[in-house]
């Protein structure tokens, strides 16, 4: 089975910080703080992203495959 794993970092837009410096007159310190928080946040997040998909989901999706998505009249040629 082909599994595509998109990592968050691959899709992160460059304008991550737009609008975040507005309220501050200390952009350098603010951005240091943002970097710190951003790095921690992504570390926590990416840790989960990089985990293998639990078996329960593969099983679930396999079971769901027996039920056609959306329309009832989707033709399934048997397994």
């Amino acid at each position, binding site marked *: 089975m082909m599994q595509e794993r998109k990592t968050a970092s691959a899709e992160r837009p460059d304008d*991550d910080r737009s609008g975040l410096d507005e309220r501050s007159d200390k952009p350098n310190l603010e951005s240091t703080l943002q970097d710190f*928080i951003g790095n921690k*946040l992504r570390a926590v*997040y990416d840790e989960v992203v990089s*985990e293998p998909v639990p078996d329960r989901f593969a099983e679930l999706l396999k079971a769901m495959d027996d039920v056609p998505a959306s329309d009832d009249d*989707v033709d399934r040629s048997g397994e």
Partner: protein
Amino acid sequence: MSAPGTGINEALRDELIGHIPNLRAFAVSLCGSVDRADDYVQETLVKAWSNMDSFKEGTNMRAWLFTILRNAFFSDYRKKRREVADVDGQMAAKLASHPEQHGHMDLDDFREALKILPPDQREALILIGASGFSYEEAAEICECAVGTVKSRVNRARNRLAETLSISSSQDFGPDRTSQAAMAIASVGGASRSSGS
């Protein structure tokens, strides 16, 4: 552009599977518990599958899935808030009783700090800072204005800075600039040492 006949289910299924790692990361960060997160992911997959006809092909499936998941989470959260009077207060107390550590600040501390954020702020911060959505996409997912997302992200960052500086200011960073940033953020920019 759905090709009639075979392969539709498999293609959709593969696409769903591809989104699971990010959905899980979002759910774990949002609710703070892996077990509960996986329940939300499961609920999301089932709902997505049974409502696939309401998904417009060619649009952003990831955003659609995130929307389903956060709606499930916030629906539960609102229910629980009615049952338990002070969820946030309890979280804060739990954090405050956390023994003070002067070692290296690890990710657990950050996870705890994340938990005491109001969930709407936490959600905005994750969507923008980790999931990689644009402000516009995040606004659609949260069903709010772009400006609201921005202000939630700002408040989340400020509150995190505050929380982390209280529990582990020593460990904020290896350099003084970092610590200064934290100190300034935690007192709202009131103290300054430079200039006359």
